[in-house]
């Protein structure tokens, strides 16, 4: 028998504590009050619209930057507490996009690798829900093969000059900052010689060009950097350690509720349509509902294990990849099941909320298993975790 730790044993049941359930109640009450159902257009998970005003209100409740230290305005809460807040926001369809990336990963990464000065400069504004961050990883020739990035930073007086092109940069046109991965030296192993920089998206030399998504919406962009000056005090972490920093960021990015809730509202709204009598009372609908509820319960449990693991200081990159691949595949599968069941030709501008959600989901679905690392890469991360 093999003696290596068995990956599936990383998933054990978790019950929320009393304080955690209380937080859940508070978030539900807040949402019911701030965003009553029927008074706003709910969005699909993390694709939701950006609403800086909503982000600030949420921050005022202490629900942005929850994982960050109190001295920078954070909540010093656990990953599980942040999980509880984010799952409620996502399943409600709340407009979380403005603070999403900063809260999920940029803040924690700055807290982990940044200088004292950087923490004081960025973290309080992140915790107030003010600063929006973008992720500057992918490039035209570097998708899954991230270590091949060509954006280059050259030494200059007092800092660096950054030149290159980043793509699929969500929110770059409205966000303030972007954490850009670039090559600072050429080394034998291409994972060496990479560094991360905090780039002001409004600095001279930064040009943001929208990349329209297949449905015509424009939330991601190409960011062209031409000799953009980045001062030494905006280097994030150690020069040459960009790869390790980036990969540590991925556990925050991959194992959370945003990877299995993107199509939740389609099913909730399907049930609402049934209640309002606008759908035939089909036993197939109950079967679909039962299967979906079981899968969400299960994925939620797995995802919660990743959060508890992060709180315990355990390495969660592999379990997070495992959950992300399953979760995003399910987001697509459940949608396909709904499409087959209702046999509609949904219009994105229908007067029915259900149809609008369905249409938007169908068009967004191909990206679920791509963004944040493709399913193929997730499987290879899991496989390496099994055999290493």
């Amino acid at each position: 028998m093999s003696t290596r730790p068995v990956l599936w044993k990383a998933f054990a049941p978790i019950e929320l504590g009393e304080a955690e359930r209380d937080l859940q109640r508070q978030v539900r009450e807040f949402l019911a009050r701030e965003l009553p159902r029927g008074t706003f257009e709910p969005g699909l998970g993390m694709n939701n619209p950006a609403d800086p005003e909503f982000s600030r209100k949420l921050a005022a409740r202490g629900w942005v930057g929850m994982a960050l230290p109190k001295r920078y305005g954070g909540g010093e809460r656990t990953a599980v507490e942040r999980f509880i807040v984010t799952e409620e926001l996502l399943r409600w369809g709340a407009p979380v996009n403005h603070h999403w990336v900063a809260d999920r990963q940029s803040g924690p990464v700055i807290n982990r690798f940044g200088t004292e000065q950087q923490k004081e400069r960025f973290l309080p504004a992140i915790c107030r829900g003010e600063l929006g961050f973008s992720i500057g990883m992918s490039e035209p020739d570097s998708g899954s093969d991230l270590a091949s990035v060509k954006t280059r930073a050259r030494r200059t007086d007092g800092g660096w000059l950054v030149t290159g092109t980043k793509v699929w940069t969500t929110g770059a046109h409205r966000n303030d900052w972007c954490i850009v991965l670039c090559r600072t030296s050429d080394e034998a192993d291409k994972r060496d010689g990479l560094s991360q920089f905090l780039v002001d998206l409004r600095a001279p030399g930064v040009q943001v060009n929208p990349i329209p998504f297949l449905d015509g919406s424009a939330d991601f962009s190409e960011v062209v950097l031409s000799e953009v000056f980045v001062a030494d005090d905006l280097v994030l972490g150690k020069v040459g350690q960009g790869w390790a920093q980036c990969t540590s960021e991925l556990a925050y990015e991959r194992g959370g509720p945003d990877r299995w809730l993107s199509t939740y509202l389609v099913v909730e709204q399907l049930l609402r349509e049934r209640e309002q009598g606008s759908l035939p009372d089909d036993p197939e609908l109950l079967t679909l509902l039962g299967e979906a509820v079981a899968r969400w319960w299960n994925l939620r449990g797995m995802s919660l294990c990743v959060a508890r693991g992060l709180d315990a200081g355990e390495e969660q990159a592999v379990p997070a990849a495992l959950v992300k691949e399953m979760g995003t595949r399910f987001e697509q599968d459940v949608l396909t099941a709904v499409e087959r069941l209702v046999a509609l030709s949904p219009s994105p501008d229908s007067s029915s909320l259900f149809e609008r959600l369905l249409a938007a989901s169908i068009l967004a679905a191909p990206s679920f298993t791509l963004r944040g690392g493709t399913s193929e890469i997730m499987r290879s991360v899991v496989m390496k975790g099994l055999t290493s």
Partner: protein
Amino acid sequence: MTDNTLLEVTAELFASFEPGGDPCEWQGAMWKAAAEMGLPWVGVPEEAGGQGGSIADALAVLKLAGAHAVPLPLAETGLLAGRLLAAAGADVPTEPTTCVTSGKAEELVLRDGRLHGVAQQVPWARSASRLVVLLPVDGTWQTVSVPLGSARITALTNLAGEPRDTVAFDGAIPELIAEAGVDGEDLLHMGALTRAVLMAGALERVCELTVRYTEERRQFGRALARFQAVQHHVVDLVQTTASVGLAAESAVRRRLGGSARFEIAAAKLLASQSVHPAVRAAHQAHGAMGVTQEYPLHRFTRRLLAWRTEYGDERQWAARLGTAAAEVGADGLYPLIASGSHN
């Protein structure tokens, strides 16, 4: 009582009897060894002659039984028949005992204190001393225990070759008819929980076998595990094992504090739903070696295929869960997902 040491000893015992030979044949020596450790009666109260310990202890033993394809009626003797007898205030026998849900005993009737009719797919009836069934009598559930000596038993097996016999009674005199204290739904859920846990154990073994085989077997000069197309199967299996394992364990924990109807339904649904993709992936990754009697994979994949439908398949449990979800309605849907039976 089932601390980790006992589970280790249990695993060693089960492993020492592997492979258990023809699954249809009664493994007397193995039963004797398991009975000496009290394993069939874990989770049955000591007052009733059981071994004591919690339901979770019993299910931990069953998970190991699933992982070692143990050909004994452990679930039936303890958690099912044993607990039914204990709930009815009776003592448990020291011999193997079997049990079926009311659904498989629909044709059984009590007339003037005698049992008539046919029970279907009775696990291990040919080797068990007694059959324990729940029968509705005048609107209340009665636990009926009847010796199998006088029954007409037709030997049948399930897909895994495990005995699932047809048992006919023609005026047999039960040794116990007593108010059950539980109902048909309770028994159905306990049965489904035993199968979900057995399946979680079997999946672990299928996964281990597949990981090992694909690392050791070389073709085209490299291990199968180096081929992306094969990795895809392996990762699918790891995900299934992790998710079904978590689902089953979550149901077990919740069952300690209540009836855990939601969690048991979801766990059995997920376990049953995983069977065909998991069995296909494991066999595909093993190639022709996996479809031989000699290689152990079939002992687990066949059991998974058989257990998929026992105590309800995925569609039956999905319909039940879907009905429960429709009852809480759209506004209650997410709270149900997040809190399950504690909702």
